[in-house]
């Protein structure tokens, strides 16, 4: 190419589609600062908030002239209520965003989200079944088991729905966007019908358990629950390097990923198990929370590009920020009562989803 050609090419108006990616260090610095900032915000506002001046003392720093009674109360709120709740909100938000990003890569479709295409509902149906069946079979004496039973059941339900969805939507290595979304709609309808049936047959106590949990809330956050989520979150983080490059190349198509040297079957298996485990544990803690999985990766792709080596870890951070923020809003909006977080994320996320849909009309119409 001559210099004249280069000049004319450079002067063409390309502003909308020329992409310069920001440096990784800068992105992670901003995101981690964001996580810390929202965590700080979440401790200071809402019912029983701990204002900044008292926070340092409650965190254990030796502060002069702290009121001992106030300090004891602050310490209790902070360590047994606030911090586990923030930790769980952060981890669940990270898992939801990560499972959305992985699912979008696996299905080569920016609109995929576990909550939207019935994977969360499948998990919720399995978990609701576990509530009713365990309660009917063993009665109240086994209620303590629900902490362990719910995630396992939800994981199994999510795994089944993801696998079925993949089998339906992909044919000869191509996945159809329309079939994928419609099949997801049908699967969600089936799972929701199942949940409806369970609600219908459940007795009063079971019904209270199911509805409380289905609405989705982090108000019951405890250290044991955080202990349930943490291993899955850790596992998911460790799995990111295993699948990131594969998901990049999978964007070209299954056959093309194979030509480039990717073991596509292995990549698909790891991705499906990861999506199911993350969705399952999220559903078992706070019910169906939608749209975090769509909104977060979409925003990040605009800024840092679609490469999964950076998109996946960044999604974890931004997902954490978003859900801690949403949970704080849920606590404050109608204080001292709490708005169910699933309703809040749907109310904010659904319009955003429509916005993406309009922007990408041409892509989806094909």
């Amino acid at each position, binding site marked *: 190419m001559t210099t004249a050609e280069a000049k004319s090419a450079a002067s063409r108006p390309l502003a909308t*589609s020329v992409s310069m990616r920001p440096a990784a260090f800068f992105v992670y610095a901003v995101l981690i600062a964001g996580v810390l900032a929202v965590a700080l915000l979440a401790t200071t506002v809402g019912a029983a908030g701990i204002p900044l001046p008292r926070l340092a003392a409650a965190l254990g720093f030796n502060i002069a002239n702290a009121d001992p009674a106030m300090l004891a109360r602050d310490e209790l709120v902070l360590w047994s209520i606030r911090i586990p709740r923030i930790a769980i909100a952060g981890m669940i938000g990270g898992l939801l965003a990560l499972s959305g990003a992985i699912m979008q890569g696996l299905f080569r*479709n920016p609109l995929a989200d576990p909550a939207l295409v019935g994977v969360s509902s499948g998990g919720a149906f399995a978990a609701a079944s576990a509530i009713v069946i365990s309660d009917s079979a063993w009665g109240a004496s086994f209620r303590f088991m629900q902490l362990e039973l719910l995630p396992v059941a939800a994981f199994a339900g999510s795994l089944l729905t993801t696998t079925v969805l993949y089998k339906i939507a992909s044919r000869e290595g191509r996945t159809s966007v329309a079939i994928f979304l419609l099949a997801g709609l049908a699967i969600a309808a089936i799972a929701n019908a199942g949940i409806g049936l369970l609600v219908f047959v459940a007795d009063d106590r079971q019904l209270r358990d199911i509805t409380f949990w289905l609405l989705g809330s982090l108000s019951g956050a405890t250290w044991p629950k955080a202990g349930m989520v943490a291993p899955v979150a850790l596992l998911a983080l460790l799995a990111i390097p295993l699948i990131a490059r594969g998901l990049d190349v999978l*964007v070209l*198509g299954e056959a093309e990923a*194979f030509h*480039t040297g990717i073991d596509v079957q292995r990549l698909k298996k790891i991705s499906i198990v990861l999506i199911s485990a993350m969705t399952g544990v999220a559903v078992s803690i706070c019910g169906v929370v939608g749209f975090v999985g769509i909104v977060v990766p979409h925003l990040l792709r605009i800024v840092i590009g679609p490469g999964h080596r950076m998109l996946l870890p960044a999604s974890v951070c931004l997902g954490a920020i978003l859900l801690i923020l949403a949970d704080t809003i849920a606590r404050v909006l109608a204080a001292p009562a709490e708005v169910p977080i699933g309703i809040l994320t749907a109310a904010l996320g659904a319009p955003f989803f429509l916005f993406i849909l309009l922007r990408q009309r041409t892509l989806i119409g094909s």
Partner: protein
Amino acid sequence: MTSAPAIIEADAVCMKVRQATLLDNVSVQLRGGETVAIVGPNGAGKSTLLRLLSGDLRSTSGAVRLKGRDLTSYASRELANHRVMLSQHVNVSFPFTVEEIVAMGAGDRPRNAAASLVDAAIAELDLAPFRHRELPTLSGGEQQRAHFARVLVQLACGEADHGPGVLLLDEPTSSLDLRHQINLVETAKRRARSGTAVVAVLHDLNLAVRFADRIIVLRKGMVAADGNPTETITDKMISEVFEVETSIGSEGGQPYVLLQRMQ
């Protein structure tokens, strides 16, 4: 014809899907340094043969051997070092830039190690103005060139470690303008000169003549002709296989085809 051993060969391969026979007892041997065009009417089995050679599909019977070893014994990662393939339609729904797509050809090699190969492929295919553009915003032909550049990077990476490989191209010029059709053909021929076996499915017989030193004509899943352009591109062959009337001319010792009418 050279007596060098074949880099890749199909040995009596048959491909049957339910009742339909897509390929029937096809044997071809491809040597390093050869440029081979596969031509034939729609449904003759051209793409099927290419996908068998790439390892995408497994034959119902017969075997494909790459560098003397059965193709099915290669792991996908190992295979990627010896054969590369450009598919006909690649649809990317995420905003990767041209540079990012081309760099995917380098696999998991460190970014610095492949940077010069990426630069070279981008320059060779006239893609410098589009380097930082997002692929989904480009025209079909520009996207096709980006994917060809990606495949060239993969080829160069594999050949650096393992010697000459196989370059498979499925209708690589389908969206290209004339200038870039010629550029693609010349680029592919340069690879053959350095020892690569280059195989392309082509529809345009004149382009096939310009590209290939050997043309394989497929018809109904069987090899109808296999030889140099003057042997294969004849009135008789074209009327039998393509069912059209043509007049064949000659220019600089190479045949050219003028379409007349349907039979």
